[in-house]
């Protein structure tokens, strides 16, 4: 084989490689796109994310500006969603609040996923006593009804959005860990893992290069469904007065302060409630769709 032809070959190869990469993404989006539910969910999520980014531009008023004489106006042309009990524009607050609510959702899930995945990988891969210890600890965590654990954590750390994030994150650790542990044990048994072991790979390579990428889809699915629950839990904690601190326009907190007006000024609770519900719906749709799209059984 002459040098020349190898060069030609590798040029071809690089091209081919690029094309493959592109197509990989394309097929991913195609599969998602084909699933209507996932597509709707994806659009909802994208919409929320753009709201988050565009809040300063879209908001008609300062979300923090208190204007007592204007309090509790029902929805009108000037205030599309009305004003709250301190005369702040609810629409503007909701727009700014999306940052917080999405932030809590994403960071708590990230937090839970990070520890959960690590624990799950280690327990699932090494098995035996390592697994026993980790699993028992997870059992303990699971034995707490989630919100009670969060409550206890928050009363220890004090109420704040960050602590809510941590608390909600903590109780999703065992959920991630269990899924990851299960999938790891499944994937561990597959022949390609044996193959890489017979090649002499060390545990690190096996776990992170070979097992982890192959259990991503249940993680992603779980992640997006957890996001929904996380946002609801955070709202629940805010409802109990343990969430975001005033005057932050976190939706759960808005909802919570709106509940006193549920009869006299229902719009104060309805709009943030709807925003939460739709976002949660979005993540649920997306997660479900993703599950269908990524499930090899439905693919074939």
């Amino acid at each position, binding site marked *: 084989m002459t040098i020349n032809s190898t060069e030609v070959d590798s040029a071809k190869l690089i091209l081919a490689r690029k094309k493959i990469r592109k197509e990989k993404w394309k097929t991913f989006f195609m599969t998602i796109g084909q699933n209507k539910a996932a597509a709707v969910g994806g659009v909802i999520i994208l919409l929320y994310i753009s709201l988050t980014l565009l809040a300063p531009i879209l908001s008609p008023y300062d979300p923090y500006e208190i204007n007592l004489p204007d309090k509790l106006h029902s929805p009108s042309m000037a205030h599309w969603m009305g004003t709250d009990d301190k005369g702040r524009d609810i629409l503007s607050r909701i727009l700014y609040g999306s940052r917080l609510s999405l932030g809590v959702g994403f960071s708590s899930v990230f937090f839970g996923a990070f520890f959960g995945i690590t624990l799950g990988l280690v327990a699932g891969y090494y098995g035996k006593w390592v697994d026993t210890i980790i699993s*028992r600890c997870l059992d303990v965590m*699971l034995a707490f009804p989630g919100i*009670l654990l969060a409550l206890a954590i928050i009363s220890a*750390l004090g109420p704040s959005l960050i602590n809510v994030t941590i608390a909600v994150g903590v109780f999703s650790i065992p959920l991630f860990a269990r899924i990851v542990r299960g999938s790891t044990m499944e994937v561990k048994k597959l022949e390609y893992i044996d193959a890489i072991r017979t090649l002499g790979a060390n545990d690190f390579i096996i776990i992170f290069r070979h097992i982890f990428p192959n259990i991503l889809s249940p993680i992603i699915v779980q992640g997006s469904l957890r996001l929904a629950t996380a946002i609801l839990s955070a709202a629940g904690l805010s409802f109990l007065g343990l969430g975001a601190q005033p005057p932050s326009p976190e939706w759960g907190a808005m909802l919570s302060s709106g509940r006193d007006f549920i009869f006299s000024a229902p719009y104060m609770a309805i709009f943030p409630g709807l925003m939460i519900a739709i976002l949660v719906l979005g993540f649920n749709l997306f997660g479900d769709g993703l599950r269908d799209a990524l499930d090899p059984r439905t693919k074939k």
Partner: protein
Amino acid sequence: MFLFILKRLVQIVPVILGVTLVVFLIMQMVPGDPAVIMAGEGASKETVNELRENLGLNRPLYEQYFSYVGNVFKGDLGNSLKNNQPVLDEIMIRLPITMELAFFSIMITIVLGLIAGIISAVRPYSFSDISVMVVALIGISLPSFWLGLLLMYVFSVKLQWLPVAGWDSTAHIILPAITLGAGGAAIVARMTRSSMLEVVGQDYIRTAKAKGLKGHVIIYKHALRNALIPVITVVGLQFGSLLGGTVLVESVFAINGLGRMIVDAIRTRDIPMVQGGVLVASLVFVFVNLLVDVMYKVFNKRIDLN
């Protein structure tokens, strides 16, 4: 089976110990001196110190923990800091209420969920399927306390069909149970549907069809029983989040249950009460899980193979 249950019971012990330890540690981290809170506004330093001494709050941590665990195994969960009543008594007043609420909610979850799931699965992608699933998705997405307030507003205040709050008659159970069970019902519905659809694709369903069985026999005799297996697990897990959910629903509907008791106890730093409450809640949870595992085993004997 008996041995299996026994083994699982033995396994519960370390979990419960773990739970007590975690609660104990968390409560230690909680700021706020229970003695100060008990003494109330404007009490003098001496009073507070005296109280602290009486409550044993001056002893080293590990000592407090060990004496606590020792007492727990004797069935003594200590006395409430708030009203000095035995914690166990306080819990026993509320546990039946919460269990009743949980029971009715889980019934709603199961019955509604199964019916909806089967309706959907029988004719996938039909109008009825899609509408049931849309409702289910919405059900999952609504914050439960919000749903509770809305239901209360519509059915109790506006229509006056049902009582607003409390826990005195059957009518009182309806709204809280729906509020608490709705999310779970939606999840069970979706699980039933996907599980049914998966089972319907199985070889043995094809076998049943090849035998010439009627459609409904296939669905109820051959498919549903198998489809229920994963659903049982989901229901079991659902029970866990249900216990958590009682906190909110009990607040909204003024139900004197365990969940609200724990929240109140956390607020007032009534440490023995928190510890006892969480311990009991966890025990209930763990036992329900055991029950689910047993049912799972009964339904799915194939597990024995592995």
